[in-house]
């Protein structure tokens, strides 16, 4: 038995950010994973969250202009 004091999905939801940030304690992580194994509702939302983080990362990425790289190298102390 999980021993959850309240709705297990609600608890799982609260653990999602720290779970994905890998800051849960070992015990909490096991608890979250146990719940996720049996709950497709939460599993879907965790997967979405991972996709979402990846989406944001890619959406806001912009390659560094090559000229800037050259300008930074020029700031180095001459030997």
């Amino acid at each position, binding site marked *: 038995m999980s021993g959850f004091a309240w709705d297990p999905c609600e608890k799982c939801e609260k653990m999602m950010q720290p779970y994905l940030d890998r800051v849960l304690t070992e015990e909490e992580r096991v608890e979250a994973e146990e719940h996720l194994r049996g709950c497709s509702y939460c599993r879907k939302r965790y997967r979405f969250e991972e996709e979402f983080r990846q989406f944001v990362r890619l*959406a806001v990425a912009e390659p560094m202009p090559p000229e800037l790289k050259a300008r930074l190298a020029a700031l*180095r102390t001459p030997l």
Partner: protein
Amino acid sequence: MGESTPDSSPRQLATDARDRVRFEEEALELSDQVYQVARRLAGSREEAEDLVQETYARAFRAWRSFQPGTNLRAWLFRILTNLNIDRGRKIQRTPDTQPLEENDYFLYNRLEESTGDGTPDERKVVERLSQNEAVTALADLPHDFRDVVLLVDLADFTYSDAAQILDIPIGTVMSRLHRGRRMLKRSLAETAVEGGG
């Protein structure tokens, strides 16, 4: 103690030069990552480029104050975020008046509702979000929140590194991060629902 008098023996000078070269090379290898965050801190590409240049100019000047073996990436980002504040970023009062009732499943639930497609694939749901809106939503976050979201979610710093870089308690990092992420999701949910329906 302050700065020790530099030893000017030829051997010391050679060691010094070697350390400096290594430092500069390692710092330059991180420039892409520094630029990514600078670009999101600054309003334009030009400003971002200036910010990165200033960061490196300052880092190269201050290289002796970097302690080898400690986190160079965090050290550089600390310079970057400090310069960003120095360059006149307005100190915004944290708008904690806005209630954020949403929980962490909120965005998925909203998008799922609006697809009218039962339980769609997670990837399909993410595709409903617009890339441009993500850029705008991130830019529109209150700066205190945005700084933390950028350091943790874009630059992959730990909570504790982010706390050191921004010189704030770790608990503040956590609360700003969670709140910042929720604000981001809320504004994306609004635009996605409007756009897709």
